[in-house]
Structures are given as C-alpha cells and as structure tokens.
C-alpha cells in the first residue's frame, strides 16, 4: 500500500543511474546504480516520510534490493511502531 510513495522517495533520493519509470517494483535497485552510501539518504527520507526508525538489523542489502522490499519493510515498521505506541498509551 506504500509502494507509490516509496517509489517517489527512491526516485528522489536513490541516486540511480536509470529513470525510475524504467524500474519494476521488484527490479534490482543495486544494478540500477544504488550504492551502499546512497541507502543512507534513502533510509533517512523514508524514516521522515513514514515517521519510523529502521533498526540496524533491517539495514541490509535485502531490505534495499527493490521498491517492493522497501515498501514491505515500511509496512512492517509502521505496523510495529503504531502497535508499540498503542500499547504505550
């Protein structure tokens, strides 16, 4: 459900070598030019947009491998973190 907004953020912050329109949701971001350092900017933008925090364990190559895997990670984190907030209340 977050795929479109994730796609927009990847386009803006991924520093890819190809236009985002040429990428499928499950296309490999690394072969499209994503580097390890560029994942930091992408992570920060996603954290800001969705009000989430990526734990170290999720900062893996797998998480950043495609738009779909990033959207899935955002899904997991928004779910977890809103559940935590609810139980804190």
């Amino acid at each position: 459900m977050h795929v479109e907004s994730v796609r927009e953020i990847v386009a803006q912050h991924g520093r890819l070598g190809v236009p985002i329109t040429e990428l499928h949701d499950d296309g490999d971001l690394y072969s499209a030019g994503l580097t390890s350092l560029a994942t930091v900017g992408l992570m920060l933008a996603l954290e800001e947009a969705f009000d989430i925090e990526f734990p170290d364990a999720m900062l893996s190559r797998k998480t950043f491998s495609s738009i779909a895997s990033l959207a899935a990670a955002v899904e997991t984190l928004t779910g977890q973190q809103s559940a935590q907030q609810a139980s804190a209340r």
Partner: protein
Amino acid sequence: MTIAQPHPKPAYDFSALLSEIHRLGRETIEPASHDVDAAARFPVEAINALRDLQLLSAYVPAQYGGLGLNIVQLGRICEALAHYCASTAMIFAMHQIQVACIVHHAGDSHYFARYLRELVDRQWLIASATTELGVGGDLRSSICAIEVDRDRFHLVKKAPVISYGEQADQILVTSRRAPDASSSDQVHVLVSKSTYQLEALSSWDTLGFRGTCSLGFTLTADGGTEQVLPVPFDEILSRTMHPVSHIVWSSLWLGIAAEAVQRARAFVRAEARKNPQLPPASSLRLAEVDIVLQNMRNNVHAVTAEYFAMLNDGDADAFRGFGFATRINNLKVSSSQLVVEIVSQAMLICGIAGYRNDSRFTLARHLRDAYGAALMVNNDRILGHNATMLLALKEV
C-alpha cells in the same frame, strides 16, 4: 556464498619466518632502500628476496601450494618490512590486497584456481587499477567498461595511479560490467602483461613512498571472460579490498612509527650513557611517544583480530554493516595521523641527528613517507563516508 576459510593449520613456524624477514631486512632491504628513495626506483632486490621466500604467495591457501598465512600474519610481515623500507612494505601490502581479493572471491572458478597455482610457481606480482581519471577518486564508480564479444573482452582505462604498474605481471582492474551498465555496476578483472599495454600518463616524483613507482597510465587490455571475478565488485570491496587495504596499510605505518621510536630510544640511551646520573630531558618525550605508539599498535591489532574472526565466522552480511565499515575507516584515519605524530615526536627527540640524512638516527625518509598515509584514499573522503554512515548507525 561462502568465503574461502583462512587456513587454520600452519605448516611452518611463523616466528622463524618473521626472523628470516628481519634478516633480509637488515642485509638486503635496508641497504637498497637509500638508492630506491633517492632515485625513486622500484626496489627490485627487495621484491626478489621476498620471492625467494615464496612470500608473494603468502596468502594463497596451502591447497594451491601457497604459505597459507592469515591476515594477522600478513599484518605482522608488513609491519616488519616497514622497519627497513616503507616502499617495499607498501608494494608487498598492495600485492597481498589483490591476492586476497582473488583468494576470497574466486569461488569455484577453474581459471582462478589454475592462476593461484601459477602465482605460487612464478611468484607473480599483481598491481591494482581502481581509481580512474574523471571519477574523482571514488572507487565505487567507473567510466570504463569491458566490451564483451562472445568469450573475449576488450578494456581501456585511464588510471591516474597504478603503483608499480611497469614492474607488475598482472593488474586487477575495476570497470563497469558492460558499456550500458550504470557507473556503480562494476566488475573486477585480472589482466596479464602479455595481453595489455601501458602508456604512461604521468611521472612519480613525490615527497615519500618514492619506490612504489605509482605512475598514471592508459591501460589497454584484452582477455577471456573467465578473467572476470565471479562476484560484483561492491561485494569484493566490502568483504575484502576495503578491510584488507586499511589493515595492511595501517600495519606498515605502524612499522614506520615503531622504527622511529626505536631510533629515538637508541638516541636517548646514547645520551644517557654520557651522563648516567642525570637522565636527558628527551627521555620524558620518549616516555610520552611510547604511549602513543602503544595505542596505535593496540588499535591495529584489535581491528585486524576482529576482521580475522569475521572471516572465520563466514557470516557474509557482517561485512556490509555500517558499524564494521566505520571501524575500518577509523583505523585508517587514526593510523595515518598517528604515524606522522609519532615520527615527528621521534625527530624532536633525536634533534639534528634525526633531521640529517646521513646520521644513523636519520628520520628524514620516515617523516616523508609518513605524510603519504593521509593522502592514499584521502582522509577527508573517508571522514565524509563515516559521517554519512553514522547517520544510519543505531547500534549501541
């Protein structure tokens, strides 16, 4: 993907090997080092002496006939060599980085298995061509690309620096995977002297590390596609090239620093003998610089031990973590700064005897060499990378 295991059972006596290296250092490497430095020429007698000890295949596993040394031992050898000639130590270190890239990442390639056996037999020397004119020193970006036609490739790279390029037997080169690949989609290709040409682009007349002969070249190479390492370069970089480079470089900078402190100790001892009742003022400076040397040594050894343990664990993801990459970068920045600090302090202790080129306490070349450390992969670039990675790092 499995990593080639560092070889747990040594078939030789490492401390005997290290003593032999120190003997070579005194008898062959140090005597040649003055002319190597003055003429900015390749230390041919030193490298041939290392060949005689089979040290160019030191990191090649025993199954291919190599000595099967591990990264901890490689670091100790770099440190030992730097006591006698930092250029020789640097050439040895850079060669071992290339060997480690092949050993760790050749997978089940028949070509590279055969190559490693030949490397043992022939004691070949491998150079590196990573940086490229037009990319500003960024290893993770290439302009050149291999052009593949069936099972052959053609490659042209303008490299601002290929250390000992003219003396090497092979060069390990980064390039884009194909002419239509993005700049970060890179491969690592081994090219051989018989099928490449080098055209010099620049000379090598520098303050220090003069014997590394790090001229710039246009490299034009042909070869078979089996000469391309079977994993993407970014994996080779994070698992092997990045950590191994900073570990072996820091080890040899440690050797330069340790030699300077050794000379300072000898100088203070000679002063103390003249007046045994009153310790010379320089003895306090010596006591201070010895603390800095100990800190530097402990950091080099600790990070090397961490990497060695990770290689033994075989957890491929661990190498990609920002925490590990940051610690490796910290080691580089710290060691490259401390070597200048320590050699400078040692020179203050030795005074004019350290400043002279013709005294037995001379530290002139050591200081010139030490200043190179912060520039080879510029510390500002490394700090910039760490600044970015620290934004993402949350580990306690």
